[in-house]
């Protein structure tokens, strides 16, 4: 039973990371109906930036916040420069551009930081009060950070004028433009926010998965699965889906298929959800006019 609970709690910790990345994916999907295949690599690169900042002697939390700011600007720049020209292009072109981004960011990280796997510090002392017998300090801390990020994102969209403008731009771009919202910039800011949320997830993931240019491959896959499970147009669904994927992955790895082919769990969830219930558990049924 103790082993089982341990699996569930550490599943919740990685699930929090998946939930954050899934939320980032959903934010971009809601605004533009694009799925950002480079989301994971952007997070990975931000984590490397954080690692350098810490190496330069900044304290952990200052480096953390600075990285989030850099990631925001990076995401904004990518949207304005790379994604904007293909905004209205066919799906295939958009997918290819995102794959191009994925490949570029991955190999840039390899060139700048090398492909060797390196450790990453955790800000949470191992003997902290929130460390229990079923959950270690970093896992508990990263769940806390995930919830803090979610609360901030919720507050931003719910209570600020900019958040309202962004929701309006995503829901009805034409009318938003008529009332004076700069829809293009709202999309850019959305990308920036998604990049920052991804960066937070990457920094929380690095002590668990270790830092290397390919660390986000499996994280991205589970996050896709989580986003689809919860419904790719529903942020709350995506968060719940992300947590569910974390737990499911750990339990399946421990009791069902073994850790070596855990990724196939994500594959099965993705294909299963898409075939059986494409709108996910909490998503809206999509109706299109012919």
């Amino acid at each position, binding site marked *: 039973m103790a082993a089982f609970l341990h699996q569930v709690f550490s599943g919740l910790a990685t699930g929090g990371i998946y939930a954050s990345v899934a939320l980032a994916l959903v934010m971009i999907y809601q605004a533009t*109906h*694009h*799925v950002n*295949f480079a989301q994971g690599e952007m997070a990975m690169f931000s984590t490397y930036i954080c690692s350098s900042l810490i190496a330069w002697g900044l304290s952990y939390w200052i480096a953390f916040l600075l990285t989030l700011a850099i990631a925001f600007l990076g995401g904004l720049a990518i949207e304005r420069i*790379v994604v904007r*020209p*293909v905004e209205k*292009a066919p*799906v*295939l*072109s958009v*997918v*290819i*551009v995102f*794959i*191009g*981004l*994925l*490949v*570029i960011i*991955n*190999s*840039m990280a*390899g*060139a*700048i930081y*090398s*492909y060797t796997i390196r450790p990453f510090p955790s800000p949470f002392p191992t003997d902290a009060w929130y460390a229990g017998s079923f959950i270690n300090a970093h896992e508990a801390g990263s769940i806390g950070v995930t919830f803090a990020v979610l609360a901030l994102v919720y507050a931003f969209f719910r209570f600020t004028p900019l958040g309202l403008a962004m929701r309006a731009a995503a829901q009805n771009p034409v009318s938003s433009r008529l009332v004076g919202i700069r829809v293009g910039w709202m999309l850019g800011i959305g990308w920036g926010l998604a990049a920052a949320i991804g960066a937070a997830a990457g920094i929380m993931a690095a002590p668990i998965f270790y830092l290397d240019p390919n660390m986000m*491959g*499996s994280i991205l*896959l589970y996050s*896709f*699965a989580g986003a*689809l499970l919860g419904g790719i147009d529903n942020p709350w669904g995506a968060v719940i889906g992300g947590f569910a994927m974390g737990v499911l992955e750990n339990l399946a790895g421990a009791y069902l298929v*073994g850790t*070596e*082919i*855990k*990724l*196939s769990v*994500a*594959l099965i969830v*993705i*294909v299963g959800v*898409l*075939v059986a219930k*494409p709108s996910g558990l909490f998503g809206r049924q999509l109706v299109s006019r*012919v």
Partner: protein
Amino acid sequence: MASVSETETAPRAREIAGLSLARWRAIGLAAFLLASCVLPFFLSNYHNLQLTIVVIYAIALMGLNLLTGFNGQISLGHGAFYAIGAYTTAILTAKFGVPYWATVPVAGILCLLVGFLIGVPALRLEGLYLALATFALALATPQLLKFKPLDPWTGGVQGVLLRRSASNPPWGLPLTRDQWLYFLCLAIAVPMFWAARNLIRGRIGRAIVAIRDHPVAAETMGVNIALYKSATFGVSALYTGVAGALGAVVVGFVAPESFPLFLSLSLLVGIVVGGLASIAGAIFGAFFIEFVPNLSDELSRNIPTIAQWLLGYTPNVAERAATAAQWTIYGLVLIAFMYLMPTGIAGFIRLAWARLTRSRGKHP
């Protein structure tokens, strides 16, 4: 009278040096085939091997182009079919002693079946979602190949080694092993390309393209979308599987890590660069993905020297760039082609031809 002479000269305006596009194509094709038959006798074994791999990639790209280019179903996971083809050949030859040439059709048919079966759920996944699902397939492929219960056949992490001497030239032909395998692959590739061309040019091909361009209209015209889409998936997998099988014979070794996500992405790069929805595009793309990594290797080996010359010292980054240059170039090329040349090299040639002939028509 003037109008009559104009209608008479109009067809001639689409000619260069008195030959029509079709003639030029025929000449180009003949020259290309001749060159591909003669070239191996003048090349080293290593270059022959490279050329063989170009032929193999061309088959794989033709398969992916049938699906993604002509039928509009995005697959980011064709490396999985390449892996199935390769493993089929490896297991049949190494564990069951089947001669390697007999395993190629088996691999093709197996991939046809698997592709058809994957094509059925793919019917419900449009555009983006299919891309997502196949992306997941590509990421999971190396792990699936390590599946423990299959270890006795797949060899787990170690993979399977094929006996190289088994694929020596038969009947005492005066060829090296590399030359023989090159001609074998060419002899398989040419009919497959011919078949693909006939498939695309005919009634079935029109239906395949119509499904991509306007599924609703295609269905109204009586095209059975479900059947055509899954069949295209199957045929596409067959091509890629045959390529995988030949790849296993030529390389003589398969292992899970030979089929990473980046193999699938290379294939995508190949069809985008060569030209989506173009038969010749598969060949251009194959040359690109085989030779550009080598070129970028050369280039990156020179990066430290160039940096030394420009900056006066060699930064660490310059040395590490060697490993990353290939994929950075791939990524930049992917994005640049989408912006500037969305129809790839084949489309560029078509466009250049149209420009050349049009300007002739204007200034007689």
